[in-house]
């Protein structure tokens, strides 16, 4: 910011000795000159992010039931007490954490591996072709990804089980893996889908990181006879660490808040592992019954609070190592 201020003052020929009054006047003028540019962003951000977030907070202190037509009553912290004592909520958080634990490492290390391979491809043309192919899934709309993998994992027409049963003969029709129904496989199946989806996009992130490593650093190490293994652990991984940590935080956030995947692939069955806290919130607010939106809002806020604490801890841990 300092960079901007200096030349601007010089150019505008503002008198070096400004009175306090003209300083305030200038500040007001700056406000009028610049905020029209920010206005659309502020309208969208306040109107459909800040106000809805506040509205959900307000709801969470009431016993609002959407379908009973009655005015909601203020109940204070009652919803929060109830949610914290709700085993289904904690089961939902636990399920989301298990998914996150499977999802995040794959979403970081598979693209990193791809990027390291891609970075060394000598031919520019070939490298572009690989990049474009890997990016194809990130151009496909989310629900269509889920529909696609519902087909992949299907027991009757799905190509995966066709391959395992009819081609390789490892399983038969009775023992074939139930990719989405078997609680031991569900999260791995969904995570595989997400890896497929995010591979290209995340690879680009790592390629950008690899591009910042000075070539002569690696070349010098090579001349000194360092093995590729040692160079990876000695140089590359440290250069990529900031990207790894940022992705870990961002992907923790997206994995904990996953909801569409679970609704499309698992539905609203409370016993299935896809019934996480987000699905519980949606089911409570928009599903059957009276739609207890006050309670759902409290689920949303406790979940968000829980996530923000973990994100804050991650930031703290990662910062202290710099």
């Amino acid at each position, binding site marked *: *910011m300092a960079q901007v201020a200096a*030349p*601007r003052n010089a*150019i505008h020929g503002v008198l070096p000795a400004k009175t306090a009054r003209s300083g305030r006047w200038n*500040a007001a003028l700056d*406000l009028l*000159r*610049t*905020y029209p*540019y*920010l206005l*659309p*962003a502020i309208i*969208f*951000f306040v109107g*459909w992010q800040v*106000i*809805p*977030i506040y*509205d959900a907070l307000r*709801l969470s202190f009431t016993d609002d039931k959407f379908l009973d037509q009655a005015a909601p009553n203020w109940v204070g912290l009652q919803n929060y007490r109830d949610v914290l004592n709700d085993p289904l909520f904690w089961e939902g958080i636990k399920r989301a954490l298990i998914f996150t634990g499977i999802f995040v490492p794959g979403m970081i290390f598979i693209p990193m591996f*791809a990027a390291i*391979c*891609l970075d*060394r*491809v000598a031919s520019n043309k070939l490298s572009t072709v*690989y990049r*474009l192919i890997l990016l*194809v899934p*990130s*151009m*496909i*709309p*989310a*629900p*269509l990804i889920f529909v*696609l993998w*519902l*087909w992949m994992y299907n027991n009757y*027409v799905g*190509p995966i089980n*066709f391959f395992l049963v009819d081609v390789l003969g490892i399983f038969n029709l009775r023992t074939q893996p139930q990719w989405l129904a078997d609680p031991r496989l569900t999260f791995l199946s969904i995570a595989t889908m997400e890896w*497929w989806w995010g*591979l*290209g996009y995340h690879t680009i992130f790592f390629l950008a990181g690899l591009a910042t490593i000075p070539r002569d650093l*690696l070349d010098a190490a*090579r001349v000194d006879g360092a*093995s*590729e293994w040692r160079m*990876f652990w000695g140089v590359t991984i440290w250069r990529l660490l900031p990207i790894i940590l940022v992705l870990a935080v961002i992907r923790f956030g997206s994995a904990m*808040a996953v*909801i*569409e995947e679970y609704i499309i692939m698992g539905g609203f069955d409370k016993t299935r592992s896809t019934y996480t806290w987000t699905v519980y*919130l*949606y089911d409570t607010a*928009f599903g059957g019954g009276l739609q207890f939106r006050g309670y759902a*809002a409290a689920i*949303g806020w406790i979940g*968000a609070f829980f996530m*923000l604490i973990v994100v804050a801890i991650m930031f703290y841990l990662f910062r202290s190592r710099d």
Partner: protein
Amino acid sequence: MSLGEMTAGEMTVGRVGAIDHEVTDVWQPKRRIKWGTIGRHVVLIALCLWVLLPLAWVLLLSVKSLPDGTQRYLWPHNFVDPIYAHYKFVIEKATAAVVSFKNSVLVTTLTVVASTITAVLAAYALVHLKTPFRAVVTALLVASLFFPTRVTALLGIYNIQDRLGLINVTWSLMLPYTALTVAISVFIMRGVFETVPKELLDSARVDGANSARILAGIMLPLVRNGIVVVIIVNFVAAWGEYLLALTLMNDAAKRTLPVFIANSSGGVGAFLWPRIAALYIIAILPALITFGIAQRWFMKGLQEGALKA
């Protein structure tokens, strides 16, 4: 795809690669088989196959005859005749699909236009103008990236749309859509605007151009690759949004394509699987074509600092 495999591959990959570049002619015999190079390409080709095979399978399904579409075997006994019959059926007979397709086009167009204008204006003000409270605005936008807004604020978004009378009004989906991507769009543009030298701006000011003319005349051509990135990011997000579209549009005629496809993929009635597959291909094509056309600028835009976000 374990870590061990990766590093083992890498050990040979890099060494051979380096020798190729620098000292091959001096002492490296040409006949040596470059196992590292081969291994690297094997890995990349395997990843590409992993990416492409599921899509190829859908393409195959979309030209299978209806009876073959429900069978286990991979290669159909009969292709549908003519080969594009399912596509024709979806476009001509499945009016509900066409309606939802049009809805998606409307919402996506509005979202992309609104997001792009919003992001360009805001990022310009944040990077190149003497905007008061810049740090506060930036901090709020950053904070919003870490808040699970889509889930926690869903009830609030429903309420505000309800109060504005916008439930079941298709175009209104662009309002929350633009809001949910505003932070990331602004950061992409901010990264690109930062690569534009300040001196350029200053000399234009000396010549007497005001900030709006500088943006339109000087800045826009310089940041166009970043604009492509913003357009693509918003296009994909809006074209595929499911949760809000499902929640805010109860009327079947107001639904967008993703909701329609997700709801009709059960494989019953008029929507047998091969036909859904045809609809599926039609649904993913706009994004893929857009990307195919814009990929050159998209890649450049990413390199120019869009990734700093």
